[in-house]
């Protein structure tokens, strides 16, 4: 069984600040990490490998320094790593990204593709689903549990107020959420092996055989006009205590504000 895991290196913060002049994310001084949901995806792939036997192939598109994220993935237990890096890939929106990644995916005979639900820097949650569409395979998003039965996966998909159980045949794309598992720490031995015994293979646009017009900024239908940080609104108020106290407080506050 081959499992592809698509990961993204992101700045380690939930409060990404935007430079008011350049309108881009301020990344300076912010350490880079593997996107949290992607780590859940990777962890699940490694667990499947440990339980059923599989090859875990991890792939990212990004700048050369994204190699660190791949090394960490190798240290956690991935078998192979590919870094899609090329000037022409830069500035890709989710459509161009998914398209580029799909070209890479097609190079493998895969059974499962794992993505994280969404990246903490962009928060779109689009790349996974778009990748499944580009590959024309079924997808299950918001996955919180996976079981394998032959060529079929039994997947629990989280909903706001419960979950769905979905039976789906491989090949399939899944997007992981943090409820799926607790990612392991890469072992220290794994770190040395990742640097000394494993390889991060570089893949360029030419290697993928893609038309430079179709990828990166040029291949992106989305045009960003401007980006701003919204002004903080007045903070809401949270009542704590038992229900009776909370209701009393709430009513009192509404009376004070002449709402009732």
């Amino acid at each position, binding site marked *: 069984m081959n499992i592809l895991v698509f990961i993204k290196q992101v700045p380690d913060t939930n409060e990404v600040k935007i430079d008011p002049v350049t309108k881009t994310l301020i990344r300076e001084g912010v*350490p880079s990490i593997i996107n949290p949901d992607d780590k859940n995806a990777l962890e699940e792939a490694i667990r499947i490998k440990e339980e059923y036997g599989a090859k875990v192939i991890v792939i990212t598109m990004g700048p050369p320094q994204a190699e*660190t994220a791949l*090394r*960490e993935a190798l*240290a956690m237990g991935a078998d192979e790593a590919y870094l899609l890096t090329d000037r022409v890939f830069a500035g890709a929106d989710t459509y161009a990204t998914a398209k580029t990644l799909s070209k890479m995916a097609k190079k493998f005979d895969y059974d499962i593709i794992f993505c994280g639900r969404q990246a903490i820097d962009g928060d779109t949650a689009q790349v996974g689903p778009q990748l499944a569409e580009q590959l024309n395979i079924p997808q299950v998003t918001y996955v919180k549990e996976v079981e394998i039965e032959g060529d079929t996966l039994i997947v629990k998909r989280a909903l706001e107020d419960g979950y769905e159980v979905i039976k789906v045949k491989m090949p399939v794309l899944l997007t992981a959420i943090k409820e799926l598992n607790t990612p392991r*720490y*890469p*072992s*220290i*031995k*794994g*770190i*040395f*092996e*990742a*640097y*000394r015994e494993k390889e991060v293979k570089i893949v360029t646009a030419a290697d993928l055989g893609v038309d430079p017009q179709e990828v990166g900024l040029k291949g992106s239908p989305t045009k960003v006009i401007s980006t701003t940080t919204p002004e903080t609104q007045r903070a809401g108020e949270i009542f704590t205590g038992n229900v009776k106290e909370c209701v009393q407080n709430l009513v009192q506050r509404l009376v004070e504000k002449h709402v009732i």
Partner: protein
Amino acid sequence: MDFSLTKEQQMVRKIVREFAEKEIAPKAKEIDLTGEFPWDNVKKMAKADMMGIPYPKEYGGAGGDYISYIIAVEEISRACAATGVILSAHTSLACFPIFQWGTKEQKEKYLIPLAKGEKLGAFALTEPNAGTDAAAQQTTAVLEGDHYILNGSKIFITNGGKADVYIVFAMTDKSKGTKGISAFIIEKDFPGFYIGKVEEKMGIRGSRAAELVFEDCVVPKENLLGKEGEGFKIAMVTLDGGRIGIGAQALGIAQAALDEVTKYVKERQQFGRPIGKFQGLQWYIAEMATKVSAARHLVYYAAWRKQNNLSYTMEAAMAKLFASETAMEVTPKAVQIFGGYGYTKDYPVERLMRDAKITEIYEGTSEVQKMVIASNLLKM
């Protein structure tokens, strides 16, 4: 000259820090209060392959370099100094002599499970009457057939009573002085081996310092480590490496104090502004940061020399001396900067101050480090 860490070392720092902040730090206060041995931390470190970082994979280690190991001790100690010394004593004092002087059979039987973290190790040199004067060993070992019979006691032994494997020093020939000391590998279940008094300590309270008692303890002949009479040399060379580990522990404690202070002075307001705005405190912080940085360079330099098979006795002593004195300088400063809050258990700085003191004492007091440095310099 290149001061940067390799990519591997940077990754080790990142991962161990993440691990220490999430898994170790949240329990440090509790461990200090109860004095309970942090088995859970040891198990987690073992799972992450941290108990044998600098040893080859064939011997159960992580196959890493010495600087990576030292970084791990620093980062773990930054979160919990008691856990830091458990790691350092295990790796530097118990695993190392077996790796260096052990026979193939001894490495297979003892080093592999130790380096994998399946077993815990300890090192027992100090006796009630042989502290700084370690050569004054009173524990004896007498060969009788294919066994040695040990009698005597050791005190203040880190991991004592918790460890499975002990490196124990004893006199095999009193007439030969230091050349009459030998080293043994002793398992916790050997007949005639008992655990005595467990110390109540000022700091590193989660770690163990216990008395070991040997009453006609039966040790198989093949558990002699190195040759008869090599024990003192084994102890001294082992302590040279151990001191880099204790330097790293002190460094981690000092860094933790500095981190706490940098956070606190931005939050605490007096006279209508954060106290970090006062130049009086800025000067303290600048001095603390400078000392911590100097300590780090000395510690890493000693580790680098060991990694590269250069002599490191003097550099290890300098690193331990300076890093431990730095820890003892910056941790009370941190308490001072926290004011009354720093004196309470609501903040970790009082614990850091108590934890720091031991680094000037064990594996050779500061006075001993100066003796080592001077004798290496003067050679007289």
